[in-house]
């Protein structure tokens, strides 16, 4: 009877909301065996997380309702279990790790306490739990494990927090580990480490892994088989190689085609007079040196990508160039005038030339303003740009320019999807007719297909309007598609600076090579080769 460790059969989940019934998952079936890794691939809203929440009994009912189907664990239907038995399964037989380990760890308890709880909840004695917690932290590679037991989640880095989550999830050696976007919030190099750790642990324990992701690269790196979901339906299933090489469903083809990093790289022409010339910018916070002398030139209509891991100083640089933060020393000549020496009045005039698009449009758009208000606010602040009578017309124009329509003017940000919100943010930046837009991880939060569209939009604006971009990103394939020049930063230094081709094809620095090697390629064969190269590099 029990052929598979986990079998999901004809599962349907709906949510009863004020807007009506949303069928989040429709009649999906998949299975998973011991020692195997299955990836559920999909974009936001595809319902890829819903089925795993149903497996973990994490769906709030109401508003959620499982309208049909079975979830069999070793042949026993989890949906029909009495509550106390069902609870016993969580943590003991099935465990889960999540995308954002900071918010998923309780901020007010030590990590030792939280790992011990996983054990004591299922009957372990507290002394034994203490020993085991120490062993687990050591196993997942947390430095100074004994001291770390008494530390709080905020005292760890993002990658370490995910390791703590993994230690906690694996405390009782579950048969199945569900990993919901486990590395999405992490730097590429850290992502590679965490995925490697997961694989090692899987080999040690023989557990099955169900990994939920939007990233074809992650699928290629860790999964044996993959199921693709779109709008609540399972549209394709197969081995990773089959699905990548020979996708059957149009949606899968679209996803694979949209994966960045395959297009022709830009080859910037000869460099003339720079529009922005940054020299020796330094900044420290307390004893921490965030920027240790940054210099670069930016030409009109050119894209300078800034890449590096978190803590490398990328965002600090952006804030300083916009004078949202003051540098300790250095200069930034904008058309010959030093941005850092401008008086507040001069700066106010110059603000319209320099605009910024932030990572999270949900946070950077005021939720109580309509799209019209959001975009036209720029002209309230700089009234000389446009007479009020023309505002409506111009907002409509801008919306069309970013791929939305005039009918969207009266709506509020929450009525749009993530990608549409980012377009609104771009339209807002364009309202001032800037000559430089600084994008701080502007496409990181977007789905792959939307990301491709937004990048295409930015590239069009660059060509048509001659806008220069400083494009801060951790996603190297996106950088490869969009940048003219790439600046690689590490710990406040520029370690490498060159054209996109130079940096991607003939990287000179070990750090750049490590960064490139850590990136995941959506093609399972290429990824397997990369992986072999990386292992060689490490040994």
């Amino acid at each position: 009877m029990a052929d598979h460790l986990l079998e999901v059969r004809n599962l349907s989940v709906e949510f009863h909301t004020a807007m009506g019934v949303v069928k989040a998952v429709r009649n999906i079936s998949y299975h998973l065996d011991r020692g195997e890794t299955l990836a559920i691939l999909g974009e936001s809203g595809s319902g890829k997380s819903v089925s795993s929440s149903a497996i973990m009994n994490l769906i709030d009912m109401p508003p959620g309702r499982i309208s049909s189907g079975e979830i069999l664990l070793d042949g026993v239907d989890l949906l029909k279990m009495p509550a106390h038995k069902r609870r016993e399964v969580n943590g003991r037989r099935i465990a889960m790790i999540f995308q954002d380990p900071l918010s998923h760890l309780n901020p007010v308890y030590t990590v030792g306490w939280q790992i011990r709880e996983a054990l004591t909840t299922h009957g372990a004695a507290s002394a034994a739990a203490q020993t085991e917690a120490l062993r687990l932290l050591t196993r997942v590679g947390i430095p100074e494990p004994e001291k770390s037991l008494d530390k709080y989640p905020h005292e760890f880095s993002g990658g370490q927090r995910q390791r703590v989550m993994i230690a906690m999830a694996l405390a009782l050696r579950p048969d199945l580990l569900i990993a919901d976007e486990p590395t999405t919030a992490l730097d590429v190099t850290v992502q590679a480490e965490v995925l490697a750790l997961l694989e090692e642990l899987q080999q040690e324990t023989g557990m099955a892994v169900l990994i939920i992701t939007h990233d074809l690269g992650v699928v290629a790196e860790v999964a044996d088989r993959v199921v693709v979901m779109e709008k609540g339906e399972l549209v394709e299933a197969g081995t990773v190689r089959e699905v990548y090489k020979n996708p059957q469903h149009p949606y899968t083809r679209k996803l694979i085609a949209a994966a960045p990093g395959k297009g022709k790289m830009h080859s910037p022409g000869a460099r003339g007079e720079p529009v922005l010339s940054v020299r020796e910018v330094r900044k420290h916070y307390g004893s921490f040196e965030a920027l240790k002398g940054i210099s670069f030139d930016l030409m009109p209509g050119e894209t300078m990508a800034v890449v590096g891991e978190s803590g490398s100083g990328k965002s600090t640089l952006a804030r300083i160039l916009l004078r949202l933060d003051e540098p300790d020393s250095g200069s930034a000549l904008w058309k010959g005038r030093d941005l850092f020496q401008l008086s507040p009045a001069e700066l106010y005039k110059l603000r319209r030339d320099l605009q910024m698009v932030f990572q999270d449009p949900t946070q950077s758009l005021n939720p109580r303003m309509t799209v019209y208000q959001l975009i036209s606010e720029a002209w309230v602040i700089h009234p000389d740009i446009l007479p009020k009578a023309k505002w409506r017309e111009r907002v409509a124009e801008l919306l069309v320019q970013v791929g939305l329509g005039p009918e969207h003017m009266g709506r509020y940000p929450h009525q749009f999807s993530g990608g549409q919100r980012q377009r609104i943010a771009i339209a807002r930046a364009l309202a001032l007719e800037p000559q430089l837009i600084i994008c701080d991880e502007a496409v990181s939060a977007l789905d792959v297909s939307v990301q491709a569209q937004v990048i295409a939009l930015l590239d069009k604006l660059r060509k048509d309007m001659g806008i220069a971009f400083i494009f801060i990103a951790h996603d190297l394939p996106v950088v490869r598609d969009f940048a003219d020049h790439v600046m690689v930063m590490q710990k406040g230094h520029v370690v490498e600076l060159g054209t996109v081709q130079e940096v991607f094809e003939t990287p000179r620095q070990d750090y750049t090579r490590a960064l490139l090697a850590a990136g995941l390629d959506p093609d399972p064969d290429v990824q397997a080769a990369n992986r072999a190269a990386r292992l060689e590099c490490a040994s």
Partner: protein
Amino acid sequence: MMSFIRKRAVASLISLVGLIVMVFFLSRLTGDPAALFLPVEASAEIKQQFREIHGLNDPLMVQFGRYVGDVVTGDFGESLRKARPALDVVLEAFVWTLWLAAITMSLVTGAAIVVGSLAAFRAGGFFDRLSSVISLIGAAVPDFWLAIVAIVVFSVNLAWLPTSGTGSLLHWILPIGVLFVRPFGIIVQVVRGSMISALSSAYVKTARAKGVKSGPIIFVHALRNAMLPVITVIGDQAASLLNGAVIVETIFGFPGVGKLMIDSILQRDFNVVLAAILVTALAIFVMNLLIDFAYAMLDPRIRH
């Protein structure tokens, strides 16, 4: 953590010093202190004598220096009505108020946490709606009205409890009961709101994925996080009780600092009023420190 507490202590100390300065100058700004401190019917001679005894003819800064020296050494002068040091009179009353506030707030906190948490756990359910109605009424009902109704019902009609005064444990029931209602209503609402967001947080999801039971999820995982905003409100409510539950104490003839202040103002016993203001201010200063301390105990992120 100590540096956090120290910073907060210095900040509140500044406002305490500000208050001491303000009290002095206000008592001088409102006109002739002799007229303020002495009964209305005092003769010009007596006023003159009063000025000389208390050095009111000296330059203002000299007077201020003397006043600060007195305050620091705890000398607030004599109560004009009771012929005892003003500070003794105030402290005597303050002990009553302190007990009243402490008992009331302990009961309120305990009850509000349990009711608010359970309401949040099944938000929108019957218990939630019932507790919402009760707590909203509680927060809205004026205490003077409630006090009078309580006396009419429990003391006059049912004759279960004494109408006013002190002497037995029974005397405490009505004042505590009446003072309980408003802070309870307010804090239940805050606990509920704060718990709803804590219960829908990501770390609660993790706890559920670990197989933790509902009890510990509510009272261990969510509650400690939810308490942070609640503590601030508890502090505000406790402060208003410490200020002297003026009306309730007066209605129940409860010898606390609120009733003392009203009596002293009516009797123009100004030394007592000044002492009472500074003692309650000091008490609120200490309580704020305790709140900050509790904050730091609950949230490790504040400690660092």
